[in-house]
Each structure stands twice: as structure tokens, then as C-alpha cells.
């Protein structure tokens, strides 16, 4: 059996804020961590919705950003399916099917990933454009970073995914 000299790295960009795509990202992130990999998740654009805190309102500055964060509130518990949302009915049914099949929710997956040492980083440009202050996110999200940081991580990684 081959010895692994140092921890292999796995980097995921989560661009999408859809429930189904976030699920795929977190399944892979937690499994990679359980396999001893060093996992970094980089959240950008709609993907930032996944790590927004669930409670309270998000205080963005300016009329357009305020509106955006009302219409696009986000939070792990508010994510929708990429297909068959059907005004929330499809998402409700999928969440029920997941629960009945013993699949953890995205909220549970995020907590699990954090406990397993998965690093979560938000994209600084997206945060700026979308008007997201630091307190828009749940606890345990590391500092914001940019494209150069992601590329450095990706370059050192054995696997990189864009979801």
C-alpha cells in the first residue's frame, strides 16, 4: 500500500447557490476530508448564498444591494433546486426525500465539514459587488480572498472542481 508523504489538497469552487449542486460539493468535500485530504472550498457569486447565515436580515449598503439581498436572501436553509423548484414545492419534496433517505441537510453538511477541518473562504470581489458585509456569513468562514489565492490553492491541489 502506497504511503502518502504529505496531505493531498482538494479545492472546490462553489459558484452555484443551488441546493442540488451545493449537496454534491459538500458530499465530496466531507468525503475528501475523511480520506485525509486537505480541503478548501472557495465560495463565489451565487455560491455565497450557501454560507450566508440563516437568521436575521443582511444589512447591505445602497438601494440596489439592499433589494438584491432581500430578493436573494440566501442561507443554507433557503437554497432551491436548480430544476423543478415549482415555487418551492419541488424543493420541499426533495428535502423531504433527502430526510427520508437519511441524507444530511446542507446546513448539517456545512457543520460537519467545519468539524472535519474543511476551510471555507469567500470571494472578495463577489462580496463587494453583492454588498455582503463580514457579518452576512455564518461563523467559521475564513477571511475573504481573491482569484490569485484560489489559483495558488488550485495549483497545489491534486483535484480541483468548479461547481
Amino acid at each position, binding site marked *: 500500500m502506497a504511503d502518502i508523504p504529505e496531505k493531498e489538497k482538494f479545492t472546490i469552487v462553489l459558484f452555484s447557490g443551488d441546493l442540488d449542486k451545493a449537496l454534491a460539493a459538500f458530499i465530496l468535500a466531507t468525503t475528501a476530508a*475523511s480520506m485525509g485530504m486537505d480541503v478548501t472550498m472557495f465560495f463565489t457569486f451565487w455560491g455565497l448564498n450557501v454560507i450566508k447565515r440563516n437568521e436575521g436580515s443582511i444589512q447591505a449598503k445602497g438601494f440596489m444591494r439592499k433589494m438584491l439581498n432581500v430578493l436573494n436572501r440566501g442561507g443554507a436553509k433557503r437554497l432551491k433546486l436548480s430544476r423543478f423548484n415549482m415555487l418551492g414545492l419541488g424543493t420541499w419534496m426533495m428535502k423531504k426525500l433527502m430526510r427520508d433517505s437519511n441524507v444530511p441537510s446542507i446546513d448539517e453538511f456545512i457543520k460537519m465539514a467545519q468539524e472535519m477541518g474543511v476551510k471555507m473562504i469567500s470571494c472578495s470581489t463577489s462580496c463587494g459587488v453583492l454588498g455582503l458585509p463580514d457579518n452576512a456569513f455564518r461563523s467559521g468562514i475564513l477571511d475573504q480572498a481573491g482569484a490569485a489565492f484560489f489559483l495558488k490553492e488550485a495549483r497545489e491541489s491534486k483535484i480541483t472542481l468548479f461547481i
Partner: protein
Amino acid sequence: MKADESLDCYGLRCPMPIIKTAQKMKQLKVGQVLEVISTDKGIKQDMPAWCKATGNECLGMEEAGEEIKVYVRKIKE
């Protein structure tokens, strides 16, 4: 097959049996064997892959109906 510890993952789906195995294996001593009881068919491919990635040994499997018992020996910390 005889095991030192058992982990019940009945009804759990991928990736939970693997994640629970990884957590449980931390409690075992080197050389000890863990029995994982799963109903997730993917475990037949997943556990050998997990063992290969982590340097542990997948000793074998026993199938009875929908239940799959997988035996893993801890090779290193």
C-alpha cells in the same frame, strides 16, 4: 469474520458510512478490526477506495440480503 468494534450504518447513504468509518477508526488501535454494517450498495466500491487512500486494509465483505458487512483493519494512526 471477527471484529474488535462494530459500526452500525444501517439506512445511511453515501457519504455517511465512510465519514462515520473515518471517525470511528480514530478510536481504534493499530491492528484492530472494525466491522461496518451498511445498506448502501456503493460501500462495496467506496470502502476499498477509502482504505487505499488512507493506508488501511479492507479485509473483505459479507453480504446477507440488503445488509453488507465490511471489515477494515487499522494499519496506521
